[in-house]
C-alpha cells in the first residue's frame, strides 16, 4: 500500500500536479488500495497517464477478485461500512477525483477506476 502511494506520488509530481491535487490523488489511491486489500483480498493496481486535448490526467485502476459489492449505491454512502473503518473510503475518494467508475458483481470481484485531471 505504501508502495502504491509512493508510485502515485512520483507520477503526480512528474506530471506537475499541484500539491493539493497530488495529495488528493495519493489519498484516494491509499483508500482504494486499502479496499482492494481488505475487502477484495488483494488485487492489482494500475497507473495510466492520460492526455486529452491538452489536458493531462492520471487514471488509477484497482482490481480484485474478491466477493464484490452487493449494493454499490449503499457502499458509496458516507458512513456506510462493512469493515471497521469510517465508511469514507469509497465515498470519500470519489470526492477527491474528477471521474469515478466502479464495476462490480457479487462473487466476481470489483474494479474501481478513478481519474484526476490536471
Amino acid at each position, binding site marked *: 500500500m505504501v508502495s502504491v502511494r509512493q508510485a502515485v506520488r512520483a507520477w503526480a509530481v512528474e506530471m506537475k500536479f499541484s500539491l493539493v491535487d497530488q495529495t*488528493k490523488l495519493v489519498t484516494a489511491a491509499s483508500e482504494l488500495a486499502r479496499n482492494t486489500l481488505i475487502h477484495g483480498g488483494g488485487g492489482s493496481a494500475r497507473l495510466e497517464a492520460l492526455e486529452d486535448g491538452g489536458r493531462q490526467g492520471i487514471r488509477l485502476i484497482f482490481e480484485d477478485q474478491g466477493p464484490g459489492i452487493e449494493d454499490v449505491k449503499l457502499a458509496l454512502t458516507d458512513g456506510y461500512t462493512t469493515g471497521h473503518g469510517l465508511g*469514507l473510503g469509497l465515498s470519500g475518494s470519489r470526492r477527491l477525483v474528477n471521474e469515478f467508475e466502479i464495476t462490480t458483481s457479487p462473487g466476481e470481484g470489483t474494479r474501481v477506476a478513478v481519474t484526476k485531471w490536471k
Partner: protein
Amino acid sequence: MDRIPILKMGPFLLVTIQVDMHDRLALSLQDDLAERIASTEARGVLIDISSLEIVDSFIGRVLANIAAVSRVLDAQTVVVGMQPAVAITLVELGLSLPGVRTALNVERGMELLRAALESETLGSDGDASTAF
C-alpha cells in the same frame, strides 16, 4: 517492526511522525500511546504531523481514537502542524476530526496543553476548544 518513538516532556508525551505511515504502524502507535499515558501518568499528548504528506481515513480514525482513548485516561491530545494540502484533502474526504484539538505548531500545541493543565489545576472547568 519499526515503531514511532514517544518522548516524554514533563507531564506531556511528544510524538513526531516522520515516516510514510502504514496502517500497522499507526495501530501500534495507538497501542503504545495508551500504554505510555497510563505508565507515565501523562496529562497531555502532542502529535506532530507536519512531515506527514497524507492523512487518509484510516490514519484520521487512528488520530481520533488516540484523542478519545487519552481523554478517558485523563490526558488531552493536540494534533499539530497539519499541512494545508493534507487539511483540504481530509475535509474533502469528509473527515473533520471533531474530537481532536489542533494547533499550528509544536510550540502552540505545548501552550495549549499547558493552559489546559493550568486551568484544570486552578479548579475552573476551562475547556477552550481552539488554540491561539
